């Protein structure tokens, strides 16, 4: 053989976009030995029309080698800080022992759903029929596993010293208020892939996620929780990828076929509302649970939804989308949401896996300042009443069980949109049964898909049906105490529930910090 060499022409330099396309786009093919519908069986049943999967744009063109490299850098930094936090008893640096209750809420309420998101995006990664969205979903799947695992590792230190979160997986599947996040994600996972991605990537990750992470992580920073700050900001860099998946999927679906628009609008309405209800817990965290405050719920909602979300939906108007239904109600309720929520948890402190408390004078003054129209008029009297009872040694614990909304599963604690003095009740009749809702938004969701929502495992209904006892429990026994039996089923131990004042957490905190009880310099709000 004479000429042995290939022509050694200088290779042209590929742009990031072109290189990424070469490394990903051609990987897939139209299958012939098995029909494409059998390989991707979930792409039609929702009525969404896709004509060309290749129209998907990859905004962040991260190849796997770059992913491993950058994510490893993040992990090194993060675990160095987690290690330092553990070695130096970093948990002692938070502003007050009360602060840790936000961490309990996070681990038991949110971290398990990071895991759910991990599994959901694996489903999407398999069920979308185009390589671009498959890869984007798969990358999010592994990111969410990262979040679940790094949260557990970060909060592991807190678990060693504080109560309430020691059996977080067990509690997440059973405890009454945790069915709110659990049912939210299960609703998305049991829907089809297109609804799933609109629900989580767009409505949650793009529109609403800033409302969990930005204020909460800043609050962690203000309150000396270095570990959570670090975890939070580290996770947020992944979130930016997720947000772009959300905005890209919306544009892609809307541009594929005009028939998709009304389907997507309906999903946006549903998932905005379910997401908003989920954020009830964040509102009370911001306004009542963080000792050193960052911003009010109302301010956060205004910054991250009204302004940001407003800009987003303005940009999407060209596709025929509008703002989500009932969004005005969320603005009207911004003055009330956190108070209604915190009052509920104060009431039900015996059945919560963290230790609520009555706000101090300082805390209430902050609320008066942030909510001048409503706090002193509607809510301060309640808290002062609770405080008076406490001072008399009659701290009020509500031992009845609340009616839950069939859709969002939050108790019916919200006021009418235009009347802070009236609880909002809605109902629907379906197949001879009556179902109850907290709002028009939740009733609408049920009415559109009743067959789905009648299945819900409502914790309070389940308690009354006797499904929330450990195996072998005998309700006919003489001294049977149903509440105690339920808490046993929840795996609550000493100190997991009840007020912060008088709790083992409080006693430990005072001991570790060398403080006397009621030390005014250290009392948080």
């Amino acid at each position: 053989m004479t000429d042995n060499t290939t022509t050694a022409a200088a290779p042209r330099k590929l742009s990031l976009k072109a290189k990424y396309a070469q490394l990903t786009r051609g990987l897939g093919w139209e299958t012939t030995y098995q029909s494409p519908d059998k390989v991707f069986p979930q792409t039609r049943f929702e009525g969404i029309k896709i004509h060309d999967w290749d129209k998907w744009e990859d905004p962040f063109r991260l190849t796997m080698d770059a992913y491993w490299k950058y994510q490893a850098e993040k992990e090194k930094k993060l675990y160095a800080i987690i290690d330092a936090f553990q070695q130096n008893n970093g948990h002692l640096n938070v502003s007050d022992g009360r602060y840790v209750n936000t961490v309990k809420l996070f681990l038991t309420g949110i971290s398990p759903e990071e895991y759910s998101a991990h599994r959901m995006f694996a489903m999407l990664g398999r069920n979308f029929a185009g390589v671009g969205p498959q890869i984007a979903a798969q990358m999010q799947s592994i990111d969410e596993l990262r979040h679940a695992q790094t949260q557990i590792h970060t909060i592991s230190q807190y678990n060693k010293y504080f109560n309430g979160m020691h059996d977080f997986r067990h509690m997440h599947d059973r405890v009454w208020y945790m069915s709110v996040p659990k049912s939210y994600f299960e609703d998305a996972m049991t829907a089809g892939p297109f609804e799933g991605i609109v629900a989580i990537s767009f409505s949650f990750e793009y529109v609403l996620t800033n409302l969990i992470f930005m204020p909460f992580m800043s609050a962690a920073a203000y309150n000396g929780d270095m570990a959570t700050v670090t975890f939070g900001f580290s996770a947020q860099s992944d979130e930016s990828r997720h947000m772009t998946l959300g905005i890209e999927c919306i544009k892609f679906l809307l541009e594929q076929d005009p028939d998709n628009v009304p389907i997507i609008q309906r999903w946006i309405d549903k998932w905005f509302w379910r997401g908003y209800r989920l954020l009830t817990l964040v509102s009370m965290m911001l306004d009542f649970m963080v000792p050193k405050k960052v911003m009010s719920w109302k301010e956060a909602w205004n910054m991250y939804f009204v302004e940001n979300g407003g800009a987003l939906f303005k940009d999407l108007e060209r596709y025929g989308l509008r703002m989500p239904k009932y969004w005005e109600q969320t603005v009207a309720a911004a003055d009330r949401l956190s108070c209604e929520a915190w009052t509920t948890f104060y009431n039900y402190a015996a059945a919560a896996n963290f230790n609520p408390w009555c706000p101090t004078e300082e805390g209430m003054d902050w609320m008066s300042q942030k909510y001048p129209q409503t706090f002193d008029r509607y809510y301060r009297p309640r808290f002062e009443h609770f405080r008076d009872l406490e001072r008399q040694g009659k701290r009020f614990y509500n031992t009845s069980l609340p009616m839950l909304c069939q859709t969002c599963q939050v108790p019916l604690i919200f006021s009418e949109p235009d009347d802070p003095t009236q609880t909002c009740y809605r109902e629907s009749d379906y197949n001879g049964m009556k179902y109850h809702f907290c709002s028009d938004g939740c009733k609408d969701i049920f009415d559109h898909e009743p067959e789905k929502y009648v299945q819900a495992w409502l914790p309070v209904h389940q308690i009354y049906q006797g499904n929330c006892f450990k195996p072998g429990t005998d309700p006919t026994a003489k001294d049977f105490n149903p509440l105690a039996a339920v808490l046993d089923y929840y795996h609550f131990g000493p100190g997991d529930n009840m007020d912060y004042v008088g709790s083992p957490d409080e006693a430990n905190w005072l001991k570790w910090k060398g403080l006397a009880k009621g030390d005014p310099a250290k009392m948080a709000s």
Partner: protein
Amino acid sequence: MSVEIRTAAIEPVRQTFSHVARRLGADKPASRYQEATLDLQSECNFHYRPLWDPERELYDKRRTAIEMKDWYAFKDPRQFYYGTYVLNRAKLQDTAESNFDFVERHGALASLPRGLARRIKAILLPLRHVEYGANLNNCYISAYGWGTAITAATTFAMMDRLGIAQYLSRIGLLIDGNTGESLVVAKDSWMNDPVWQPLRKLVEDNLVIKDWFELFLAQNLVLDGMLYPMIYGRFGGELSQSGGSVVAMLTEFMDTWYAEEIRWVDAFVKTAAAESAENKDRLSTWAREATARTRDALAPLAKLIYLDEARAVLDDVGAQLQARLVKAGLSV
């Protein structure tokens, strides 16, 4: 006035999470792998039946015929959680990157004998589509499997397969000077060349396997277990002898990766087989069927690479796989 400095002993209230302690048998310090893996998946009180599978629950043990008393009996010998996984892969990619850089700077691929370059293109590049199939299969298991122990491992594998597909693609770009032409030709071979059709059919048949543990076996044990030794083991070695050692540099990642895959895949299969006679029988049946199908599918490719030695090579990689199956406790 004296100032009393009070010191308090800071004793932890507990060593680990309760669900971890139950599994460890006592409240004692747990590893990061344990805390990040055990019981992470929801197992009860689901709210809604899936629209896409209304006869089943959201997570459902019935999605496989394999039965376990405890799905956390599976232990990843690498003890990977996300952090240790990406750290490990970052090191591997750093080496791979240096290798690719070296080859590019020295024009090493461009100066290969033309026949050799053609051979590399014809054999390696279409395999990127096999990797893509592996990516989708591990994605399927991560989605529908039961328990974090296995599904986390397949999540890492899913991303690995994409990474390998991308390295193979880059080899093509290095050879064709970034025009992408080699990848177009490889795709055409994949779709139309008779040599590749049985393998493509196998990959597509695997894509529609419904039982996720059966799929695990077919993909991660049987197909990988024959394809990887056949290609990256032997072929790479042969290429080195004829001046293509540069290919060994560019596929070093695959070698390292496969040696690691054997460890955790075999461990999982062994655990499942040891659980019960029923599991062992079912796994053995699956393995026998998959091995026969896979060997047939690989035969034309073996012939392309090894010519008259094809059968001997197939026997050899078949024997390697067989040894693994036996060691895992299967009767094949």
